[in-house]
């Protein structure tokens, strides 16, 4: 196991952790807006870390560009979708959750 493999392993484990955080948030948080917050940020970071980990195993420049493109596209798409879903949920009459005091 050389240094590249160790870096890949660590980055993949870190990415998996963020995916776990996103899924737990999706299942446990109380309303659409908080779930939106958990999912669209944590998952993108997890995917970015996994793509970065994969980049350590690749020596072809074009494939590196492709991995960067995948991450960039997912970031762009999820930022757009977070706004769209949030707005449409508000228009449908969803009330943001407040802590019951």
């Amino acid at each position, binding site marked *: *196991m050389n240094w590249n*493999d160790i870096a*890949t*392993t660590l980055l*993949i*484990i870190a*990415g*998996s952790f963020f*995916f*776990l955080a*996103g*899924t737990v948030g*999706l*299942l446990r948080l109380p309303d*659409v807006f908080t*779930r*939106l917050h958990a*999912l*669209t940020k944590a*998952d*993108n970071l*997890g*995917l970015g870390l*996994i*793509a970065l980990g*994969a980049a350590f*195993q690749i020596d072809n420049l074009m*494939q590196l560009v*492709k*991995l960067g*493109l*995948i991450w960039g*596209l*997912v970031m*762009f*798409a*999820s930022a*757009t*979708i977070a706004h*769209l*879903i949030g*707005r*449409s*949920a508000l*228009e*449908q*009459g*969803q*009330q943001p*959750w407040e802590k019951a005091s």
Partner: protein
Amino acid sequence: MMLIYQLAALFLMLNIVAGMARVLRGPTTADRLLAVQLFGTTGTAILILFSLQTGNKAFQDLALIFALLAGILGVTFTRYGQAWYKQGATDPESTKVAAKEK
């Protein structure tokens, strides 16, 4: 290294199984759509891991398609889903939620 890729892919698959609960339970359409977004991102990560494991470059192209698809589906859904609820029937579950919170 192969073991790590496989374990990570299995773990991400477990995430998808957990997200399936949110797709089925709802309560609103936006929640289900969010869970489908989770499928898209997680699927992309699984495909990157598979491409490392098998050395098949086509899987990376497929990951690119998954990344694109998630965005397009989200936009289509918010556009047509809105029209579906605006004309006539209201979403029975979302009104239930709103009533509970009042």
